[in-house]
């Protein structure tokens, strides 16, 4: 394993990034097997970089390693881990939304508005599009907050947090929350932003991700 051709490394990285995105955005749900051969075919590469990508995802705690004859699978969440994540998630989001509201520029407010999808009141929404919007909105809050320390903390726990957010997402109402959050941030009202966020991620929010 020690002497792989150097050209393999970027390929493995590219696949790791693509798989990570699919996992955190919920396209590959917990429990889904990651079969090296079929993923290799999908990306048009050999099995080796796929294996390396999967090892990277195991290190990120997004994937459970496979056994001798079974493939690796997308990691799920046990209840204890969900509780542990939800308290960290709440604290991190509160800080980022506060600073986003306090530091926003006019251009950023405009860019944020474009991320918020129109949501019909009859509950008919494209769940995948809504999931992408929620994650894009969240990522943009970190840009607006412009805080190296928050970026760093988000790097520590962001992948798992994002995975849970998309898993627990309620597509029918998420757009309304995004709109209210957008308005609070555009107004520069950090307190309102925190109140809306508090309702959005009320305690037990992640409970819908818990196994019945």
């Amino acid at each position, binding site marked *: 394993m020690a002497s792989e051709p150097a050209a393999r490394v970027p390929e493995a990285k590219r696949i790791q990034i693509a798989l990570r995105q699919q996992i955190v955005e919920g396209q590959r749900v917990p429990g889904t097997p990651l079969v090296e051969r079929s993923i290799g075919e999908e990306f048009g590469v050999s099995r080796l970089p796929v294996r390396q990508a999967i090892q990277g995802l195991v290190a990120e705690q997004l994937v459970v390693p496979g056994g001798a004859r079974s493939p690796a699978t997308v990691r799920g969440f046990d209840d204890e881990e969900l509780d542990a994540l939800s308290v*960290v998630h709440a604290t991190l989001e509160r800080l980022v939304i506060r*600073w986003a509201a306090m530091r926003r520029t006019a251009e950023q407010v405009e860019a944020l508005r474009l991320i918020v999808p129109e949501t019909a009141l009859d509950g008919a929404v494209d769940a995948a599009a809504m999931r992408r919007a929620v994650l894009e909105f969240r990522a943009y809050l970190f840009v607006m907050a412009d805080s190296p320390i928050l970026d760093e903390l988000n790097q*520590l726990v962001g992948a798992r947090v994002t995975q849970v957010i998309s898993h627990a997402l309620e597509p029918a109402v998420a757009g309304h929350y995004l709109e209210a959050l957008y308005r609070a941030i555009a107004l520069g009202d950090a307190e309102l932003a925190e109140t809306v966020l508090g309702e959005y991620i009320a305690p037990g929010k992640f409970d819908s991700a818990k196994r019945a």
Partner: protein
Amino acid sequence: MTDQVRTEAERVADALRESIIARTRPPGSRLIERTIAAELGVSRLPVRDALRVLEREGLVARVGRSIAVRQLGLRDLGELAEVSEAFDVVAARLAAERRDDAEVERIRSTFAEVGRSIGGDDAGATARSVLAYRGAIADASRNPFVLEISTLLRGREAGAVLAPRLIAEHGAAVVRAIEARDAAAADEGVRAQYAAARSAVRAEVLAELEAKVAASRAAGGR
């Protein structure tokens, strides 16, 4: 890397971390491999590894070709204070809800050590005891994500926001609250620590302003 080398690098990292937090190596001071190796009586390799660790932790940064103790700007300090307060509150609340007797004992004894070490003149011992005390609370939270974040923040904050003296003065209420499983009181105790730190900074800025204005007026520059 053999185990022995790794242990040595860890030992060097611990020593450097302490001296940075204790301010015996103040912000901006350069860290020279050769000098440190000679000081600690080790080869340069473990020193290099240790510096890499500290760079990851954000305690030191590259300045041109050399490495120096990181200097936090005022904006960084303000942010760190807010972020550290938020996660310290979470850690203390969880610790109060979940702690077992052994954890309480560890929190109590590490806190006592903070008070004792402040009386002495070993700044390294004070830095060590503060890290141990805050680590004990984070451990008792039993939340791996809180622990991970709080470890990063402790290194980053390095006493710049919460002076050991403030922890010694206000920590007793936090320790008592955790012991009494009173999450609300633990929350309040942590916030009081940070409020005291903010008051101290405000008082310093205002006192300096007053002194400078008085000096300039006395010099006749009206």
